[in-house]
């Protein structure tokens, strides 16, 4: 009774309606298009069932490789961001002089537009005129100078490095927030019991940090699976098609005007992400209820 009155459903409506109309509805229409032959050349939209999906998995156009690259990017980019960010957060937790300055600076890159990041790093990583190789040259370490963005052996590494450069500060901020919510008394109690640094880390810090780890993983997964900008501005999928991912493939189909295939590719991504995401969020809520 009381609940109904004081927590009214009309509180939900504004958010739900705007969200439903402009976020979900276009998504659903997109899924519908994936079953059609819609292209910028056709006058009529015909329903063609699973043809587009069949094309994606059976044509010679390497879409399966794009899917593999996307998964690989998601896993690796998160590992190289989350683990160092965790240690940075531990380091910049409390008591280090100037920690606010450090935190601020490390966060800076995530506010730069991708266009700028692309321009800067493509220029800095240029094999002959780029700052990076010139510095190695000046230090007489020419053997370290590489073709960062065009050598198949280094291109993924360079992308991960730039991506980490951009994203670590953000991940770290979330960890710092999590660390600050751990009451100091827990540590004091454990120290009295004679626990060492690693034992504290294992038995107090990490378990208490689970919520921020989950958030970073959820954000990281959605970022990784949707990844587009960083690849687009750094390599545009190159050299050749080495670093193409699903999102660059969708972009390409849409610019070719083959909207049906583009929508199908995009729907695959959506369903996959939604399943993974809902599983994680669901687990997280269960835990919350338990606690």
């Amino acid at each position, binding site marked *: 009774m009381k609940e109904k009155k004081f927590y009214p459903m009309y509180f939900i409506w504004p958010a739900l309606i705007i969200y439903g109309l402009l976020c979900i509805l276009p998504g659903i229409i997109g899924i519908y298009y994936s079953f059609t032959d819609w292209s910028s050349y*056709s006058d009529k939209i015909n329903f063609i069932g699973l043809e587009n999906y069949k094309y994606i998995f059976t044509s010679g156009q390497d879409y399966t490789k794009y899917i593999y690259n996307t998964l690989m990017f998601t896993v690796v980019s998160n590992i190289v961001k989350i683990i160092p960010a965790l240690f940075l957060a531990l380091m910049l937790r409390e008591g280090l002089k100037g920690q606010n300055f450090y935190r601020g600076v490390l966060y800076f890159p995530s506010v730069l537009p991708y266009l700028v990041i692309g321009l800067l790093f493509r220029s800095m990583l240029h094999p002959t005129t780029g700052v990076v190789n010139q510095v190695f040259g000046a230090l007489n370490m020419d053997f370290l100078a590489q073709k960062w963005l*065009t050598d198949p052996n280094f291109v993924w590494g360079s992308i991960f490095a730039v991506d980490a450069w951009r994203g670590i500060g953000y991940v770290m901020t979330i960890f710092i927030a999590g660390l600050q919510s751990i009451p100091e008394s827990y540590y004091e109690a454990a120290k009295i019991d004679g626990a060492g640094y690693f034992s504290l880390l294992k038995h107090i810090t990490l378990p208490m940090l689970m919520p921020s780890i989950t958030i970073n993983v959820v954000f990281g997964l959605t970022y990784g699976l949707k990844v587009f900008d960083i690849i687009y501005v750094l390599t545009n999928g190159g050299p050749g098609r080495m670093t193409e991912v699903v999102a660059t493939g969708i*972009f390409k189909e849409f610019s070719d005007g083959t909207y049906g295939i583009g929508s199908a590719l995009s729907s695959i991504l959506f369903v996959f992400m939604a399943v993974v995401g809902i599983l994680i969020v669901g687990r997280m809520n269960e835990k919350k209820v338990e606690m």
Partner: protein
Amino acid sequence: MKKFLSAVLMLTMSLSVFAGCAKSEETPAPDAAKPASTEAPAAEEKDKNKDITLTVMTSQGWAFPAEDMLTQKFEEETGIKVDLQVVPADQYHDLLKAKLTSGEGPDIFYAQTNEFQIKTATVDPEKYCIDFSDAAWKNVMPKTRIPAVSYNDKLYGLMLWYDSPEFVYIYNKTLFEEAGIKEAPKTYEAFKAACEAIKAKGITPIYEYGAAGWHHQLPFFQIGPRYEELQPGLYKGLNDNTIKFADSKDMQKALDQINEFVQNGYYGDDYMSNDGTDKEDRIANRQAAMIQEGPAFIETIKQKYPEVTDEFGVFLVPFIDNQNYPTNPSGPAIFGYKESKNVEAVKQYFDFLTKPENLQIKLDNTSEWTNIDIAIDGVEQHFTDIEKAFKESIPREKYEIAPVLQTGTKYTNDQWMETGKDMISMFMGELTSKQVLENIDERRAKLAKSQNDPAWQ
């Protein structure tokens, strides 16, 4: 806390009111665009026009300073405002197609087109473009360019571009002489020997910019007439779908030769990272000896580096011993949007662009051009002496006989960037030349089917 809350609410409200007002201001008063006569508009005419704003959408690569100057001049003369939107080149066609497909096209837009690409480039001219068949400026364009902007015998667009094979090799003559090369190479073997000699001097023979994505595939496509010469009827067969790219031994050979150049290091080691922004510097500073560019490039170098004393020359792309000078009646054309609220103003803009004085402004302020390809008098062209002599030196039976490959065959120019990616994969050893050609065929088939082309049924 209450303060914070009310501040946020106030701000939100006032801003939304502001946004609301701004929105209603922006909505153009309907029918303000009464047909304006094309004669020199009187003051009241101008007054009437001041509520009209034409949106013009163009890509980064085509926004020569001339475009800005011309839109300003147009505003001054007619009172019609022009909102020039310059979109990054790689987003351009996607954005244009999305806007047209969803019924919200700009009043005027540019699109790359050729005879076969007209439908794919602009998303169906019959549906989206103003029919200009009766326009007075029709005869400004030379006959060769009309098919590129026509569909089913109706004229839809205006193509103002320059007449040139567009891409030849520009080379440092002085440097060639120093390396002991007496004349510009005419055969593949001579070309290779020249590169070897330059490379021995520690200079990169050819400056290539693969990171741009559109440049390194040029040599393969520019020599289209040579393929046709070696296998007469090739273009027709490719367009009837009776011959496939992968069937052509000559194309495969050309790709292999280009690949050999890359593997021999004639492009240097950073060709995949170069984006072309420093091309003048590299050539002027003797970091590279050759580059594939238009003949006007020589002038550009001299303007930027007046102190350079080296002499430069031009020669045709010599892969598979090509000696043909191709035609290329393609380029970005300008179209009017059929659903525009200001069709009359759009027409006025086209009339304006095609006036000789304005054509002259366009040519004079576009440093990449030495001429503008038009069929009327009254514009002073700036062909360079090198260019004139070069054109005359080519035997007539090889001069402008056939168009370049991407303009002479269907569904080829549409996949320009994709073919470029495949070629890079070939350079890296991931694809063979045959596979590159097969991929081209596969993409052509996909495109042809999406358009119900009877030859591909």
